[in-house]
C-alpha cells in the first residue's frame, strides 16, 4: 500500500500522471510473464496490474478473455500469480503491484491464505471486479489490516451519493471506468471522462486512475491532464499476444508502452 502512495506522490511532484499497465499472468506463456513485467517497468510503467485469469471474466472484452483462457490452459492459477508477484518483487522492490481479477479463484484459494501469501509476495493492492461495495466488507477490512489496498471501481453510471460510499471503502487509488462497457471497448469519450474525473476528485482524497478502452498516446495524454493515473490493458495484451520469444515479447511491450509513457511526460 505504501508503495502505491509513494508512486503517486512522486508522479505528482513530477507533475505527471502515473502509467498503470495491465497484463494477464500466464499470457502469452508462463515463461514470458516475468520478462513482460520487467519490460513494462523498463518502458516506463509506474504501477503494475497483474491479471489473475478466470474462466468467466464477465467484465472483460474479447482480448482479455482470450488471454485469460490461454493463461488457464498454460496452467496459471492463483498460486502461480502470487509466485510471479514474489519474483517480480525481488527484482523491483519499489514498483507497486496490484492484482486484478474475479472473486471465485480467490475464495477457492482461501481468503486468509491469500492475504498471507500476498503480503509475503509484496502485493500492494487488490481489485476484484465482481465485488462491489455491497459485498465483501470483511474481506476489504482484512486486506486493509494487512496493508493491502482494496481498490474500488467507479463507473460512468455511478451516481453521486453512491460515489461517496464507494470511495469510502477504497484505499490506494480509485479506478474510474472510462466507458460504459467492457475492457478494450472502443467508445472512449475523452471530454466526458475528463469532467467525470474532475467531479470524482472533488469527493475523494485518493488518487484517481482511469482505464477501460485507453489505447493511444493521444487518449492517455488527454486523460492525464485530469487523472492521477492512466491504465492501459487490452492494447498491451493484444500486442504481446502470440509473442513466442523473450525478444519478441519485450519488443512488443516496449513498442506499446513507451509512447504511452512519453505521452504522460515520463522522463526516462
Amino acid at each position, binding site marked *: 500500500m505504501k508503495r502505491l502512495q509513494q508512486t503517486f506522490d512522486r508522479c505528482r511532484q513530477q507533475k505527471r500522471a502515473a502509467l498503470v499497465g495491465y497484463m494477464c499472468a500466464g499470457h502469452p506463456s508462463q515463461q514470458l510473464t516475468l520478462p513482460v513485467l520487467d519490460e513494462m517497468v523498463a518502458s516506463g510503467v509506474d504501477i503494475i496490474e497483474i491479471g489473475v485469469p478466470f474462466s*468467466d471474466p464477465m467484465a472483460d472484452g474479447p482480448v482479455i478473455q482470450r488471454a485469460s483462457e490461454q493463461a488457464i490452459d498454460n496452467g496459471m*492459477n492463483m498460486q502461480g500469480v502470487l509466485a510471479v508477484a514474489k519474483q517480480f518483487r525481488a527484482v523491483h522492490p519499489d514498483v507497486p503491484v496490484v492484482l486484478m481479477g*474475479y*472473486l*471465485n479463484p480467490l475464495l*477457492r484459494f482461501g481468503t486468509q491464505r491469500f492475504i498471507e501469501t500476498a503480503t509475503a509476495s509484496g502485493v500492494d493492492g487488490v481489485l476484484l471486479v*465482481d465485488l462491489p461495495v*455491497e459485498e465483501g466488507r470483511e474481506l476489504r477490512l482484512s486486506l486493509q489490516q494487512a496493508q493491502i489496498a482494496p481498490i474500488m471501481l467507479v*463507473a460512468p453510471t455511478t451516481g453521486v451519493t453512491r460515489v461517496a460510499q464507494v470511495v469510502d471503502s477504497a484505499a490506494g487509488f480509485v479506478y474510474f471506468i472510462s466507458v460504459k462497457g467492457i475492457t478494450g471497448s472502443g467508445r472512449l469519450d475523452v471530454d466526458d471522462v475528463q469532467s467525470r474525473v474532475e467531479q470524482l476528485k472533488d469527493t475523494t482524497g485518493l488518487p484517481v486512475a482511469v482505464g477501460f478502452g485507453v489505447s493511444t498516446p493521444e487518449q492517455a495524454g488527454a486523460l492525464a491532464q485530469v487523472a492521477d493515473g492512466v491504465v492501459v490493458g487490452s492494447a498491451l495484451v493484444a500486442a504481446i499476444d502470440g509473442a513466442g520469444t523473450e525478444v519478441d515479447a519485450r519488443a512488443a511491450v516496449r513498442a506499446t508502452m513507451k509512447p504511452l509513457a512519453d505521452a504522460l511526460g515520463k522522463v526516462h
Partner: protein
Amino acid sequence: MPYTLPDAEGHFGEFGGIYVAETLIPALRELQECYLQCRNDQNFQAELDADYQDYIGRPSPIYLAQRLTAQVGGANIWLKREDLNHTGAHKINNTVGQALVAKRMGKTRLIAETGAGQHGVASATVAARLGLECVVYMGETDIQRQAINVFRMRLLGAKVVPVTSGSKTLKDALNEALRDWVTNVDNTFYIIGTVAGPHPYPMMVRDFNAVIGREARQQMLERCGKLPDAVVACVGGGSNAIGLFHPFIDDDEVAMYGVEAAGHGLNTDEHAASLVAGRPGVLHGNRTYILDDEAGQIRETHSISAGLDYPGVGPEHAWLKDSGRANYVGIDDDEALAAFHQLTRAEGIMPALESSHAVAYALKLAKQLGPDKDILVNLSGRGDKDVHTVAEIEGIEV
C-alpha cells in the same frame, strides 16, 4: 414465521447478493426499484394475470398419470402441465413478466441468453408481441444442438448471436449477455432466463414462476382435499423448481425434491449437479453452489438436456439445501431417457428431456412412498424440441 427471503440486498442467508462490476450496479438498483413498484401495483398484477390467462393459456392443469402410477405401483403421480403453455415450457411465465417490467421502464431493446433455446424462444416471443428489438446470445455448441429453436427465434424476428468464448454453452452466453448489458445499459433490458444472476433476478424470476406452485397448491386441494406429500422438479438454474416449491415452503408436511442432471454419473466430471456435487462459490453475480476446479475456474458441465447443462444454480436453492427444507438429488442421462420413453408410452405425453429428470426421480419416489400418497411433478416443458437429440443418441435417422 412465514418465509420472506430474500432480504433487501438479495441475500438468502449466506447466498445470493449482487456480485457484479460497478457499471451494472446502478442498472440493477433501478430494476429493483421498478420491480418492487410493479410487485405492489394492482394494475401491473392485473396486466400480468391477463397475460397469464389469454397469452400463455393459464392456469395449466394438473393431471393424474394413472397408467404411469399403475406401472410403478406406488404413490399417485400428478403432473403439473407446464408443457401446455404457449411456446411449450414454463419459461414464458418469466418472459411475459419481465417484458411488462421492461415496458414500464421504457426500454426498447431486449437481450437474453439461452441454452436449450427455450428461454430464447420465449424472449423472442414477447419481443415480437411488444414490437421490441431482441438479441439472443447462444453458445456455438448449443446452436448446433438446437437448430430448430434457433430457426424459431429468427422467425420471431430475433437476432441470434453465436458465443464462441469459453465452453461455448449457456454459461458463456450469460457472460456475453452481461457484457452487452454493461455496454447498452441505457436502452436495454436483460431478461435472465432462470433464478440465477445478481439481485433482483433470482427473486423476480421466482415471483413470475411462482404462479406454478400457487395454482398447483389450489388444484391439489380441490382434487385431493389435501396437499401433495411431495413435490418434484428438475433443476438447471432452478426457475421451474422454485416456481413450484415457493408456495409450499411454509407447508412443512410437503417434502420438496429438486432433481439435478447427473449426466454420465456423479462419480465422473461429466454432470451438471451443482447442489449435489458442487460447493459454495461465486458465479454470474451471486453466491451459490457451483461446479469449479481446485483453482476456482468454472468447470464444463454435461447433461443430455441442454437446459440443465449449467455449472451454477439459483441461490435460493442453495439456501433451501443448507437449511434442509428441500432435498436435491441426481438423475443421470440414461435414467432421464428411460423416463422420457416411459411417460411418452404410458400417457401420450412427451416430456422435455429436462422434465424427464423430474419424472425419473418421481418414479423412484413413488415406489418408496407407496400407495395412498401423492407426488406432484412439474412437467416443465414438452419434448418436441428434443426428438432430434433422442433420435441421434439412439442412432436413428429421422
